[in-house]
Structure formats: structure tokens, C-alpha cells
């Protein structure tokens, strides 16, 4: 029996009008003939034949050959992949998304998680920001799906102390938690960007106003009043 796999270097997406996947299985004839044909329009593709001896036509062996051919790696926990996948002629990325068979985020799961944080909503109210920070420090371990940790209580105290030290009009436009334990405040303006991150021991900040030179520093957080004046001056400009 021959297992034929097509292979060719893939062009960059910018030049790919469509991608088609065809996976065909024929187990009725006593053998297994599979082709994974990753076709770009009508281009003829060279085939890389993989010969499976009849006496070794077991499922694990065929699977191994496919893996050795570095095709469909990991998808072959069973032969169930040998069926027709959808033919999609559109955005090539959309085509491989449509072939996905795993669990995906649903409207509900995303919305539920959105609800976990009180959105800033552009209001820049201190109470809203404080509430977000309270929620950040009580995030469960692994909240970001990537073994992330919640910001520490101290990071919460430091970031809140810094917020209180700001004029109301200078409150940040965004406030996020990151899985490495930081609480991150961000300000944005036309060509301007400021970020200040609190991890419970330091304030790591970056400020660029317009086309001016960026300033940044990783400093030990002592108290809100001792934060680098270059940062607070920049916030005054963008706030």
C-alpha cells in the first residue's frame, strides 16, 4: 500500500488566494490510502510517497509513518482524522480555524470573563480603578491560562497609593493585570504612551510624549510621592 502525501513550501499569506484541505481515506479496499493535500489553487504539487508494507498496515504503524513524514503531527491519536475536512476558499487563516475540532471560547465564556473585571469604560473614576485592582489581587492562580499569578496585595496597595496621588484628570486610561504579577496602568495620547507597572516591590515605568525621547526606569517603590518626577510630569502632559 502506498501512502501519498503532498508537500510543497507554503507561500506567504499575502499571496495566497485560497487554501483547500482534502483528507481522504479508503479503508474498504483492504488497504489504507491517505492523502493530505494542502493545495494552493490549481498548482500541481509534488507528492512525497510513503510506502507502508502490507504486513505492517497496523494503525500505530501508519500513524508513525505520518508522524515521521512530519505531517498531521499530533492530530493522529486515532485514524479519525482521515475524513473529509471542510473545503474553504477564503482567508487562509480562517480556513484552518474552520478545521478546528477542539473546545473553543464561546460567546458566554468570553463575556463571563469580561464581566469578571469592572470595565474602566473611559470614566477614569478612581473607584472603578480601585475596584479593578481589588479584583486583580484576588484572581485565581493560572487566571491567564498560562500559569499566571495574581498581583500581590502589596502591588495592589502600591498601585492604589499611586492613583490617589494623581489629579483626577490624570487617572490612567487603562488598568490591567498581567500574569507575572504586575498591575499595569497605561495612558495614551496622540503618539504618546505611558505605562507604569507595580509588582509589589518596584515601579517599572516608560514614558514617551509625542516625538520626544522616551524615558524609562525600573525603580524600587518607596511611596507614591517618591515616584520619579519624569513619570509624573509626563502624566501631567498626557492626562
Amino acid at each position, binding site marked *: 500500500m502506498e501512502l501519498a502525501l503532498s*508537500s510543497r*513550501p*507554503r507561500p*506567504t*499569506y499575502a499571496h495566497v488566494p485560497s487554501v483547500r484541505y482534502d483528507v481522504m481515506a479508503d479503508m474498504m479496499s483492504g488497504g489504507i490510502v491517505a492523502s493530505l493535500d494542502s493545495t494552493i489553487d490549481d498548482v500541481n504539487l509534488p507528492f512525497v510517497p510513503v510506502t507502508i508494507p502490507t504486513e505492517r498496515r497496523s494503525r500505530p504503524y501508519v500513524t508513525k509513518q505520518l*508522524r515521521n513524514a*512530519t*505531517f*498531521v*503531527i*499530533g*492530530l493522529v491519536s486515532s485514524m479519525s482524522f482521515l475524513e473529509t475536512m471542510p473545503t474553504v476558499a477564503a*482567508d487562509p*487563516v480562517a480556513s*484552518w*480555524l*474552520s*478545521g*478546528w475540532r*477542539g*473546545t*473553543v*471560547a*464561546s*460567546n458566554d*465564556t*468570553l*463575556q*463571563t*470573563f*469580561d464581566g469578571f*473585571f469592572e*470595565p474602566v469604560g473611559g470614566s477614569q473614576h478612581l473607584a472603578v480603578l480601585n475596584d479593578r485592582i481589588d479584583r486583580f489581587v484576588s484572581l*485565581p*492562580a*493560572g*487566571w*491567564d*491560562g*498560562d500559569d*499566571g499569578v495574581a498581583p500581590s496585595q502589596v502591588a495592589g496597595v502600591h498601585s492604589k497609593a499611586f492613583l490617589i496621588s494623581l489629579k483626577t484628570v490624570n487617572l490612567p486610561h487603562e488598568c*490591567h*493585570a*498581567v*500574569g*507575572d504579577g*504586575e498591575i*499595569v496602568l*497605561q495612558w495614551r495620547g496622540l503618539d504618546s*504612551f505611558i*505605562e507604569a*507597572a507595580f509588582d509589589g516591590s518596584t515601579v*517599572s*515605568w*516608560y514614558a*514617551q510624549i509625542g516625538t520626544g525621547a*522616551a524615558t*524609562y*526606569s*525600573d525603580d524600587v517603590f518607596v511611596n507614591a510621592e517618591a515616584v520619579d518626577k519624569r513619570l509624573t510630569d509626563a502624566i501631567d502632559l498626557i492626562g
Partner: protein
Amino acid sequence: MTKRCLESPAPIDANENVARGLYSPGIFEDGKVTIAAVKMDELLPKLGHVDQCGDSSGVSVFRVDQINGEVQAKTELQAIVNRPSKNGIPRVAVGFAVLSVSAVTQIGDGPLLLLDDGKTGLTSHAVIRAPDGKEKAALRRARDNLVSLMNKSLHTFPAAVAAS
């Protein structure tokens, strides 16, 4: 330019694309990826970068223009989603951000590096990282720009589209 890892198919080319699998609703707000998607510790580990082909430190991506790149990207995303989580909150696949290599490496205020990191079975693996020795603070805008790129090229699975 030479490739770094023996199993990588070729040196990274400025004209190719890489995909970052996105698998947790926790990194989304209002349907957009937030900076929670990229830990500073990924771009610049406290103890310096680890170089071990296939498992090197950095933001993990797949070279989707390379042979098997798409398949490997999806397979790895599926593997991550299937892996038990520490807190019992299931991971869910949300989609991919597809980034052009040139856009990533041209991010200012970094610079960010994109290194091939192939190993057997994951030949198209690559990592985005900051060079060792940079100050964490210096990378903050680069991280934000990287997340902006992700949002511009976000492809969500059909079930997730409605929420974005």
C-alpha cells in the same frame, strides 16, 4: 542569516508570518487582546533567556508559512487547551494572531528578536524575545506594540467571533 536550530526548516525570513495561539479568555477584554497576553517575564526572563531548541524562552509562535507550520500551530494549541489547568478553569482556544516577521522585528523601542526554535515534531516553533541585558522598563512600549499587532491580525474561531 543562518538558522539557529538544527530541526528548523530554514532561517527566519522577513517575509514570512508567525502565529501566536491564543487560548484563554483571561487575556481578552471587550473582544481585544490585552497586555496580559504577553508577560514581561516572557520577553525578558529575570534570570536571562534559556536556549534549548523547541523550549527556548520567549513568546512562543509558529512559522505558519513553513511546511507543517499551520498543523503544528493548531496541534500545539490543542495540546495546551487539553492540558489540565492548575485552578480547574478550563482553557479554551480563542484563535490565532498572525504576525508578519518584519512587523515584529521592526517594532521600535525594543528591538524584539524573532528566533527559529525548531525541534523534532515542532520544527516550525519560534520565539519572540527581547535581547538579554535590556531593562524591563525599556520594553514596555515594545510589548504594547506587539499586543497591538496581535489585535490587528486576530483570527478567532467561529464560536468566539460573536464575542469579539
